[in-house]
């Protein structure tokens, strides 16, 4: 079970990481091209929205990595107190309670955004580059769903093995 979850989480980690790196290079290339094209008197209308939606995708991919690395922004006063207390049981309860809460929240949010996607699929219209607006809305359930999966893995690892992926330092 542990191996399976770790392998699955590893796949999600790689997907998020390489998705983020490639999206960033595309964002940078398109943004610089957009400036050069504007200076040349040409400015394709699809460039700006495309870049913005790529940044939107990056928000969820970055969020997925922040989840696995435990670097989400949080009020960590009590976390520090719990860590300082040296009580393993207290630490276990705190960590899993938080993971469960995040899992429930992200699952409900995924469902809510899926409903929005269905509405948009029915009533939406083609947007830039003839992309249907529902495809753009689909970023939200997919992105939050990905984060929900990371919290699920974290919770399972935390509950059954008392472990989680070792957080890397970001700052």
């Amino acid at each position: 079970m542990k191996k399976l979850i770790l392998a699955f989480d590893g796949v999600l980690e790689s997907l998020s990481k390489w998705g983020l790196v490639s999206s960033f290079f595309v964002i940078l290339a398109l943004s610089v091209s957009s400036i050069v094209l504007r200076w040349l008197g040409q400015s394709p209308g699809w460039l700006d929205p495309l870049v913005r939606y790529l940044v939107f995708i990056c928000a969820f991919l970055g969020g997925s990595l922040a989840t696995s690395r435990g670097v989400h922004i949080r009020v960590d006063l009590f976390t520090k107190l719990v860590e300082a207390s040296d009580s393993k049981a207290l630490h276990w309860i705190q960590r899993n309670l938080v993971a469960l809460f995040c899992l429930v929240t992200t699952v409900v949010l995924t469902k809510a955004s899926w409903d929005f996607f269905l509405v948009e699929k029915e009533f939406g219209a083609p947007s830039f580059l003839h992309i249907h607006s529902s495809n753009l809305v689909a970023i939200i359930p997919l992105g939050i769903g990905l984060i929900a999966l990371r919290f699920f893995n974290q919770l399972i690892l935390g509950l059954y093995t008392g472990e989680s992926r070792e957080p890397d330092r970001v700052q």
Partner: protein
Amino acid sequence: MSLIAYSSIIFLALLGAPIFAVMASLALVAFYFSGIELSAVAVEIFRLASAPTILTIPLFTFAGYVLAESKAPVRLLRLSQAAVGWMPGGVAIVCLFICAFFTAFTGASGVTIIAVGGLLYPMLVKEGYSEKFSLGLVTTCGSLGLLFPPSLPIILYGIIAKVDIDQLFLAGLVPGFILMLILGLYSMYQSRGIARKKHTFSLTELKSSLWESRFELPIPVFVLGGIYGGFVTATEASALSAFYVLIANCFFTRDLSLSKDLPRIIVESLTLVGAILLILCCAMGLTNYLVDEEVPMKILAAMQTFITSKLLFLLVLNVFLLIVGCLMDIFSAIIVVVPLILPIAEQFGVNPLHLAIVFLTNLEIGYITPPVGINLFISSFRFNKPVLELYRASVPFLFLLIIALLIITYIPWLTLFWFNS
């Protein structure tokens, strides 16, 4: 029932739940109990994708991370030492300049202390400054520069408050320099009576260090000159800065490897960006709900019974924001608190640009305010010192920054004179 739900969420927030999950769950619960479809939360999240300045956040953050990871801190340190190291308090002033430069680009002060603090702290101690002063200065400087362009908190504030980012960049310049000036004067005062090493001014060294820093020095010119010269927008300036630092550090100075270092830096910087944007996404639903329910107006009505003047309002605002600043992360504070105080401040006749600078100065001070100012913990970790020692070291600086805050708060002209003329 709703009270139990809200209380549980707040309890979990205190227990260390990520702010984005707290925001999302508060929005979901609020919408549920108001009988509104939960998909409305997703509709609010989707609005983020249409924010025109959203692109500046990942690009400027990336540029800052690249600079911090390269050898730019060492080169700029040499340049600053050559330029002002000979002055009384020169080394401490070098510290102010370097930290302001890096914080303006990285936004998140942790990066400044981690990347540059390690160079500056031993240098200050070696120069003869007391350990307490050196620790306090490096810790305080970790957030110095937040008012300078292209700082991430300024951009985020502009997006949330719908204030022009170009104007915000200008508005923060003089208040930012006031903070530096006050700390600089204090550093000069501290340098009296210590057996400092004598540094002589050398034109050759200045020229040589200027040449060595030739790739870093044009960056502020790109940003400020580009925007205010009318050549590029703030968004375009972020793209050019990111592209420039990438090319300069991977191909010219060769500080970083395109294949080894760059993916790591992208992942690190965009993980932070992802964490911030997620909060922004999830908070949009909640803050719009609060605004729809006229919560700011209700707070205003309650406040008007005992706050009758703009001056008193600003004083209360400062106290409130100092508390917020030492309890909450700057990004969460901007996203959550700004939509609530904006309409109230407007009613008291506070200019939105002035409010922005007062707000950000308060949160900058919050970084070093005990008990939970984040810089105190980062410095404690970075320099392996007890947090209590950091508390003691930061007190004189806290006092000085509060004086600067009062000046910035009660002389709005310092922020607004660009626009009055």
